[in-house]
């Protein structure tokens, strides 16, 4: 990651980036028809991701972060899902591409790490068999022996001790951290250029989490792939991400480089997220400052700004927050926020009321 790449990626999108992004998502909408009504899980999300960079997607459960990632992987091909917008992977549109083409790309160009490795791995096959299968699907020329060697090599790379022996173990014989490592090995066996990690450490203990985060970072340095990390834990994104996208109610409410997003967050929801987590690196606070209320239903998303029923500053927008949809506007170079509050007002509130409490 050179300094040059950093600046170009920080400037994208909006100002013209000097190199084409590896993954480009434009106005992605994923809706589901259900008996209760149309669920707008993802409603107009756009972002760019360059090779060697990490994007963190943060949000509460039901904010649409996992649906976005499954959409990129082309895993919403059910009749009930309505997908529109544009997902360009290395210039190729994935939404218009046929299922066979997407299947070719999935696993080869883009791979995914799931949250719960016990349910994501097949209990009936050994870990080795599953990695071998992932490899041979995309390398039909490789024979079984080569594939097995490759599987052992990958298990070794992700730090499984005695990989030549453990390759024949079943998933249940691995501990939680080792299963997650094995899944990372499976995802990386074809050297994908895009890796999506959906809550990769949520089910793990802190000490194991630290190991896995280090591993993902090392592997990214080594392979130079683009990484999307989806999590609800701001600590985890701060460890890994170069850029952060905050989702709320299926929309992106704030997006920017990690440092600015933590130092000078623009959206009241981001303030709420930062204020509601107890932090070990700060002096102890008397009370946490939670976001009031609960996340919205994605069937009846509140009108205007979806966050307005929970926003303590909604009254300061002359009623625009209830009637008008806020657009993502550039608040600082590369830093976008969708909020009706005037920028001066926002900065004043943040400096006077929010920052001292964080």
């Amino acid at each position, binding site marked *: 990651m050179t300094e040059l790449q950093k600046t170009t990626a920080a400037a994208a999108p909006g100002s013209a980036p000097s190199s084409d992004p590896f993954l480009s998502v434009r106005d992605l909408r994923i809706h589901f028809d259900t008996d209760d009504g149309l669920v707008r899980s993802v409603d107009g999300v756009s972002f760019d991701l360059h090779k060697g960079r990490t994007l963190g997607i943060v949000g*509460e*459960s039901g904010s649409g972060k996992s649906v976005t990632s499954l959409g990129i992987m082309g895993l919403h091909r059910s009749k009930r899902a309505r997908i529109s917008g544009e997902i360009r992977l290395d210039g190729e549109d994935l939404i218009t591409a046929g299922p066979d083409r997407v299947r070719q790309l999935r696993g080869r160009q883009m791979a995914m790490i799931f949250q719960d490795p016990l349910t994501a791995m097949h209990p009936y096959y050994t870990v080795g068999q599953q990695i071998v299968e992932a490899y041979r699907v995309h390398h039909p020329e490789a024979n079984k022996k080569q594939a097995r060697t490759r599987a052992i090599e990958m298990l070794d790379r992700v730090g499984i*001790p005695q990989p030549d022996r453990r390759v024949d173990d079943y998933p249940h014989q691995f*501990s*939680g*951290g*080792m299963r997650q490592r094995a899944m990372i090995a499976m995802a990386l066996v074809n050297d994908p250029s895009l890796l999506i990690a959906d809550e990769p450490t949520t089910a793990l*203990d*802190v*000490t*194991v*989490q*630290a*190991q896995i*985060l*280090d591993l993902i970072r090392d592997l990214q340095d080594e392979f130079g792939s683009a990484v999307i990390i989806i999590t*609800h*834990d*701001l*600590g*985890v*994104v*701060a*460890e890994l*991400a170069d850029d952060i996208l905050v989702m709320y109610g299926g929309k992106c409410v704030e997006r920017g480089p*990690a*440092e600015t997003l*933590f*130092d000078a967050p623009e959206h009241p929801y981001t303030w*709420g*997220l*930062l*204020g*509601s*987590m*107890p*932090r*070990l*690196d*700060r*002096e*102890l*606070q*008397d*009370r*946490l*400052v*939670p*976001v*009031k209320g*609960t*996340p919205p239903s994605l069937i009846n998303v509140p009108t205007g700004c979806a966050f307005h029923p929970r926003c303590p500053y909604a009254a300061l927008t002359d009623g625009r927050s209830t009637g008008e949809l806020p657009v993502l506007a550039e608040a600082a170079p590369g830093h976008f926020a969708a909020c009706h509050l005037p920028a001066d007002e926002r900065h004043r509130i943040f400096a006077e009321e929010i920052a001292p409490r964080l």
Partner: protein
Amino acid sequence: MTDTQTAPIPSPAPAPDREPLLKVTGLTRHFPIRGGLMRRQTGAVRAVDGIDFTVNAGETLGVVGESGCGKSTMGRLVTRLDEPTGGKIEFEGTDITHLSAGAMRPLRRDIQMIFQDPYSSLNPRHTVGTIVGAPFKLQNAIPAGGLKKAVQELLELCGLSPEHYNRYPHEFSGGQRQRIGIARALALKPKMIVADEPVSALDVSIQAQVVNLLDDLQKELGLTYLIIAHDLSVVRHVSDRVAVMYLGKVVEIADRDSLYRSPMHPYTNALMSAVPVPDPRRRQRAGRERILLTGDVPSPINPPSGCRFRTRCWKAQDVCSTQEPPLVALKTGHQVACHFPENGPENGPEDAPGTSEA
């Protein structure tokens, strides 16, 4: 308990000059492993293996540790949902270690439990009114103003609306369900509440709401909490004293401030340094000064001899494998079980990772 060097926030607990509310000595729980034709016992999972601690009235003891360290089993033993295989539990001076279910029943009014998963701990076929009212019926303690009124008051106390009386659990979000669980635990005005991971299944913003609710309830009702959690930042926020468990043993127990400022046990140091900090600048500045523990927690069926942490400890010496370190007080109110403690009284608390540079 309140005699720490520096206490930024006065702890809400009264000075404990009386008998502790809960006193646990040498508590053990071994789960037998049976094998062979005769189902003879071939071994034991030493889930809890001789722990001592006390909880004073009005204070909060936090218990942290990785999964499998026995913290949840300990919680179940203290509430007598499980039968200890050894040791002694005293509640208000009464030995409750082996009380029968019938003899235990009157005491259930005083010790209640909040469970981790608000989805599986509420009966889906019962209304909220039935769930929260159940303790009254079971104890034959219908309050003077009528059951419904009492339940509605409880719901209001926990931040729910009295109209929720006739609804079913599936109509509520995770945070609201956890509030229902808390209302049920509070119904009989208990003296002590054992909360097993009360917020770990909740979103960050909701987590803060529930943490604040627990805080308020403690102040209002003078409750004593035993909070079991794996999240060190949450535990720091809620506890007056903290116990760290590893493989069925308490390795360190101390006042909150003393523990977080200068953790003495190497394991506590490693745990604290592994917590991801929501500050992307720290990643560059601090680099990887974190202590990475290698490998996994050893099996509690066959724990290492001597100090149980020695297999993953970077300070381990010969004496660690032969002699089990006793839990001794190295400072007032700071007990640690280690042959080579960090931040000992002579070292001073300067180099405590995780708590430096506020």
